[in-house]
């Protein structure tokens, strides 16, 4: 075997040791090539069969944190670029929350969902003051749920980017901040709290959107409220919470509220939500959020 000079000149080395070193050398070379790099394949691989969800088993992930951001963006798109003053919607709909007024973890989780939704509307309205206010409240509520400095480190980046007017970066960092906070809530003992955040997050987002639609009703745009699958799953999850959680005074209105909301958002892809149903949805969401915040 041709050994590199650095090895072959070491006369003291025994052949077996020499072999071991050559093994290390080649192992190191092999390890240095990135595993993920696409290596040229001398023979074309056979076509990969498509994944078929009706036959293959997939692990079902937890429900996502809903975001009103997409609905606001979709409304702007449907309005063909006409500027919409989301800051005014925020002024009417957003609710300030004092973390110290939350007596327990469910109360903090419910409030956190509300503030996350408000924070996304603040990003859409590109208002630094509103966003900083939301970021502070989100941090305080997250601490109440057990978040530490590690989970909240991105809050600084959210503020820094907002101050620079880099709103896409704000959106990204706020998303990572939420994901970091949600990691704490993925611990088995916190999974119920996660569901509460998602429920009030959806409800508060619905409050923002229905407020806008009620004031600017347009049948074509009203379909943005369509969300049968997510609300259906959410309703099942909230109804399936342990009795002790459902008995919490701030939680108890949620299961019924979601059941009542579901038929209103379970419409066809081309159907509109009537003005009356927009108002009804708003009333249901208002009541659910007010109850969750004990207002």
């Amino acid at each position, binding site marked *: 075997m041709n050994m590199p000079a650095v090895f072959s000149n070491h006369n003291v080395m025994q052949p077996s*040791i020499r072999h071991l070193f050559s093994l290390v050398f080649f192992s190191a070379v092999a390890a240095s090539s990135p595993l993920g790099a696409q290596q040229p394949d001398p023979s074309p691989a056979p076509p990969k069969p498509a994944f078929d969800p009706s036959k293959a088993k997939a692990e079902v992930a937890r429900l996502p944190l809903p975001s009103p951001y997409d609905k606001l963006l979709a409304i702007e798109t449907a309005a063909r670029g006409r500027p919409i003053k989301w800051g005014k919607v925020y002024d009417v709909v957003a609710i300030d929350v004092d973390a110290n007024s939350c007596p327990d973890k469910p109360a903090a989780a419910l409030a956190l969902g509300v503030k996350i939704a408000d924070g996304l509307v603040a990003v859409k309205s590109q208002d630094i003051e509103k966003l900083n206010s939301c970021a502070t409240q989100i941090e305080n509520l997250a601490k109440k749920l057990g978040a530490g400095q590690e989970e909240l480190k991105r809050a600084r980046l959210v503020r820094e980017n907002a101050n620079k007017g880099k709103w896409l970066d704000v959106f*990204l960092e706020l998303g990572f901040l939420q994901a970091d906070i949600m990691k704490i809530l993925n611990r088995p003992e916190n999974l119920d709290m996660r569901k509460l955040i998602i429920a009030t997050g959806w409800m508060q987002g619905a409050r923002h959107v229905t407020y806008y639609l009620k004031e600017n009703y347009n049948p074509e745009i009203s379909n943005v409220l369509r969300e049968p699958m997510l609300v259906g799953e959410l309703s099942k999850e909230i109804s399936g919470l342990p009795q002790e959680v459902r008995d919490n005074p701030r939680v108890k209105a949620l299961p019924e509220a979601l059941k009542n909301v579901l038929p209103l958002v379970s419409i066809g892809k081309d159907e509109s939500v009537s003005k009356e149903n927009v108002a009804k949805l708003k009333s249901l969401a208002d009541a659910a959020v007010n109850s969750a915040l004990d207002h």
Partner: protein
Amino acid sequence: MKSSFLKLAVCSVLASAACHSVLADPAEAEDTAYRMAKKYMDKGFAMAPTDHSGVAGSGSAIEFLIPVNKGLDYTFLVGTDKAARDVDIYVYDDVGGLILDDRRPGRLAGVQFRSPYNGTAKVYMVMANAVGLSGWYVLVGRRGTIRPDSTVPYSGGAPGANSPASSSPATNPDPVGP
């Protein structure tokens, strides 16, 4: 004595290298996703993680829901660590119709399409091949469009991505270049 010591040292190095190469690294997957996000932000996408991440072995699939809205351009990206060899992504609408997929070989995957409806997309992340367990992280980007009534309901996936509903040329989400 000296020989035994050297053998022990060599074995330790090899074992360490072997372990390093197969251990899932969710932090690396997140970093990869973060770099991918930055690239799409330059194209006007508002990118954010989905709160969907984890580790997966070869052949495993994860199903998750992602809300979508009509007229918006979406990109769904999967970042992984170096233990991943091949990851795929499939996007279905809320009545079970395949919107598009990315089944190209590679350790990153991504699709881009314009949603023709309001509701929820059902997404499958399939770890087709990995060395042991691999970390993965899903990102979603959305971008408003000036003309929601455009006749391009799905703007296709990456070159090679399958887009049954698309009649338009594939645009380039280029998901494999963080």
